[in-house]
């Protein structure tokens, strides 16, 4: 299966990654190899086999609606690249960019 450079660019945009032309080409070749491997997996007969979504058999892992404040306001902001005494600060977000 072949992957176009445009496809790599779309995927890079969705993941907010930027590549040089050389990286883009490496990425394109790697993706093709990965997909080829997946093609091989398709040869396994999965007729009647439920898709495996979870690694465990558990269900209804539930909690009651109780409030527990685990961290302080200061701890919450501590690891932010940029913050003030109240808020996380991020570069201005403009739609479409």
């Amino acid at each position, binding site marked *: 299966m072949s992957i176009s450079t445009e496809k790599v660019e779309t995927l890079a945009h969705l993941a907010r990654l930027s590549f040089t032309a050389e990286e883009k080409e490496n990425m394109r070749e790697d993706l093709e190899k990965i997909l080829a491997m997946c093609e091989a997996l398709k040869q396994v007969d999965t007729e009647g086999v439920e898709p495996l979504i979870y690694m465990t058999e558990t269900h209804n892992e539930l909690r009651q609606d109780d*409030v527990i*404040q685990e961290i302080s306001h200061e701890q*919450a902001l501590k690891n932010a690249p*940029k913050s003030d005494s109240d808020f996380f*600060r991020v*570069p201005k977000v403009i739609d*479409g960019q």
Partner: protein
Amino acid sequence: MEFEAVIGLEIHIQLQTRSKAFSSDSTEYGAMPNNQVSPISLGHPGTLPKHNIQAIEKAVKMGLALDCSITEVNRYARKNYFYADLPKGYQITQFDTPLCVGGRVPFKPKDGEPKQVRLIRIHMEEDTGKSMHDQDLYDTLVDYNRAGTPLIEVVSEPDIRTGEEAYAFVTEIRRLVRYLDICDGNMEEGSLRCDANISIRPKGQIEFGTKVEVKNMNSISNVKRAIDFEIERQKECILSGQAIIQETRGFNGLNGSTFSMRKKESNNDYRYFPEPDLPPVLMTQSDVERIRQEMPELPGALFNRFTNDYGLSEYDASVLIDDKHSAFYFEAVCRQQNNYKAVANWVTVPVRGYLNEQALGMEDFPLPPESLAELIALVDEGVISHSIASQKLFPALLENPKASARELVESLNLATNTDSSEIEGIVKAVLEQFPDKVQAYQSGKTGLIGLFVGEVMKRSGGKADPKITNQLLQKALQSL
């Protein structure tokens, strides 16, 4: 050319839980920024979300109230996109197994016929944080207190045709969430939010036109205004030969118009996949039945009972069921008082008038139902007149809500005067005051009796028994 609008609504409803959907930080509105957050709601690596059972049960209640079928095996999914108010880089939502499927919302638009709008689904998801773009010159400020608050999204089929219908639809949804106690329905504070997908097509055409999504309508009347505006805008576009662009538009409440916010990205690819950190939630038939038992009686059922069992007019019943506290108060009074019509009148007129005047909700009404029942009984027994009840006793009770109505009648001396000799004295004085009117009466203007009765009432402070007054007046006028 005649056009028809095709409108579908998406309503986000914040579920009123104490803690968040997948973590234990508080959801309370109005806290200082970034004080109600946790490693989970901030999206730190290595944390594990865990379902809040009460959020799921509240969502099931909404589904049951709208006749949806409840999904037995619920999986959750990641909706992936980058935005600063979404710290994990994905929103936990439901994709291929929405908790509620199908269903319908019955409503009656103003001056219109009753209608039903079908629902596609109701699914659960989490709210985002809040970004503030205009507080600082260079940075966007982000508050994550809201991040992770449980939401349900109600998605309608495109069955709505007018702004008026959308208004009635959202009003019904808001009334239901308040009955069910799952959300306060406050659109100004954003606990209930509505987006509208609007397109138009020539009447009779089956294919849909290009749809436009309108956001930021922070009241139900603005939902109607935005839709009405958008329908006109699209008509003008088409009639002037322009194409409708598929886009997201905002609503400007100041001038009632919509404006372009962003063109729909063609590669809006959210790459949904199952959320591996949340094991599935099983909702068995017996769980669903248990939750159904916890639900209060809903407006539709109350309306039928109020018109059938209590013999109320459709108008009175619809006013009473407008909010559940009025409906439940009405029934509480009716448990002690079987003059149902009088109870309905008292609750819909003087009680409501007092609440509007004081800017209170019915849940804050100070009078216990027993007192209102007693007040009505006092009128029915003829102990006090209706006007004394509404002008004197009712205000006195409101000032002193713990007092007994019967004792107040005594202590404030409000009882109707049935003492004939006393009334006779007043009758005599009134007739002496208006000799010309008496003459006019005797020469055939018998309608003047009303004036005499009114005068006697005035002089007795509204307490003279009207029946005795009438008899005494007739007698006195004949014997003059």
